[in-house]
């Protein structure tokens, strides 16, 4: 089960070449650093800033984070690869996570996955659609089991998605 996409997205690989922690982003990181006794503790927040700005966490971004926080790149990479929400490859413009753990599985989650793949044109889970708009993955429990099937698209958690409601949902994101 692929969680992080396979790098065929159009999300700007070129953007990833520019530095993240300048201007507002740097100020944001500095404010965060003040709240923790060690720079290392700002690692997860720093990686979120990177992903929010660039859509994924590139090797260059990891190097920049390492430099800014005084860590080794190997260390940063060990953390990035532990947490599934950080994309290690560019992903589609919209990243859709469908919960398929048992409580949602009992409520048709796999049908939702199939419908999403069809509606987005993604050939496979984790692979970005040819038009670059979508990457769909299965996720483990999203903490919304009473609203099966929940689908997290970017920062929106859409509750109670069914296979039937998928096409309209996808259309909202064009």
């Amino acid at each position: 089960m692929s969680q992080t996409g396979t790098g065929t997205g159009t999300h700007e690989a070129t953007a990833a070449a520019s530095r993240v922690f300048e201007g507002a982003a740097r100020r944001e990181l500095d404010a965060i650093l003040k709240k923790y006794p060690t720079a290392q503790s700002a690692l997860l927040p720093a990686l979120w800033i990177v992903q929010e700005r660039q859509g994924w966490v590139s090797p260059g971004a990891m190097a920049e984070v390492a430099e800014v926080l005084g860590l080794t790149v190997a260390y940063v990479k060990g953390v990035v690869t532990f947490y599934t929400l950080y994309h290690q490859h560019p992903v589609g413009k919209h990243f859709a996570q469908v919960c398929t753990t048992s409580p949602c599985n009992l409520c048709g989650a796999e049908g939702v996955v199939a419908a999403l793949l069809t509606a987005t044109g993604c050939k496979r889970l984790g692979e970005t659609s040819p038009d670059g708009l979508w990457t769909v993955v299965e996720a483990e429990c999203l903490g919304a089991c009473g609203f099966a099937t929940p689908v997290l698209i970017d920062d929106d958690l859409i509750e109670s998605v069914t296979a039937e409601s998928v096409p309209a949902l996808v259309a909202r994101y064009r």
Partner: protein
Amino acid sequence: MGYPHPSHPRETVILSRHFGDAEARSLTLWMKRGGYQALEKALGMSRDQVIEEVKASLVRGRGGAGFPAGVKWGFMPKQKTKPHYLCVNADEGEPGTFKDRELLRWTPHALIEGSAICAYAIQAEQVFIYVRGEFTEPIRVLQAALDEAYARGLLGPNVLGRGVRIDMTIHRGAGAYICGEETALMNSIEGKRGNPRIKPPFPAAAGLWGCPTTINNVETLCAVPHILLRGAGWYKGLSLSNPKSTGTKLFSVCGAIANPGNYEVTMGFPLKDLLYDLAGGIRGGRTLKAVQPGGSSVPFITAEEADATILDYEGCAAMGTQLGSGGMIVYDDATDIVYQVMRLAQFYAHESCAQCTQCREGTAWTTKILQRMLRGEGRMEDLDLLFDLGEQMTGKTICVLSDSCAAAVVSAIRKFRPDFEAYIRSGRAVPA
């Protein structure tokens, strides 16, 4: 009650009173409803008095472990030689559980107030609210509430003008169930891989950055203002069966149920009443087959056992399962139990942090055996093998993730052996 349904008359609506009420999120309206009076009262008591009150209420950790919260607070050093910390565990990841999400997005101020009271009691000036990364809306709502609280002087360097400093920061997780384990949570805050730590040392002795730390679940802390305002005696009185299980519990009922949602009932409530009376019974007119009353990590119970189960810590233990997080997963007679158990094993295999040999390899191997069974290539020896692996995965690791996987698999085979044997013999599920 839990959005999307109105509260049932048999619910004891305390924590969930304002679910579905967007207005309740705003500080002004929250205070109109009595918000932050408990914090005011607590700051007028001594820290020890606050801890004693929480202890006397017998409230137990609602994240799953059920450890008495007041006792946990009491473990913090009285003499403060290093910074003390409070971590709020909002990493709700136990499959079947979705109560903290509701508490966060409908009653963020309840959490802020409860956490502030705890911080005061344990001499923590800094609180980290660890929210799982997927909870984007709760984070937005909570951050807005924190901003309001700061603006009103309910948080910050001089809380309510009493000379007490309490700072609260949201720390966003990034997709790891294991970070709901309290020591892994601390490692994650420290900017590390979310690996659980060996205990001892316990967090109250050496937690965040080696300093005394308390970690509490969202639901536990949301109960604290009520305990302070209405008294430990009142809270203790909320107990229908066993006097050691007090207060109310939000049960997240999901799966093959007609009305999924969060239901708040008094401790000691009968499980069958919750399922059939409050939650509308099994969906589609089907019948109950199995329940995991406390999340995917607790043993399965059969329909007969569910009928006799009392929903408190002791009642569930008496049935050979656990109250856990209260994430109640309902399986009906159309369920392919073997498939669902495989899916659960796959969950644990994905979430294993990789430290301990038994967990890292055992969860994956268990999944493979079940997948093979589902493909029609299973053998009778597989069942004994799964029992054996389950034994090796129980009581031998740093944390209980592998135990959880084993509990689900082993209990399913014990209680539903015919289902597994059917797959082995014929390569497909028992017809419903």
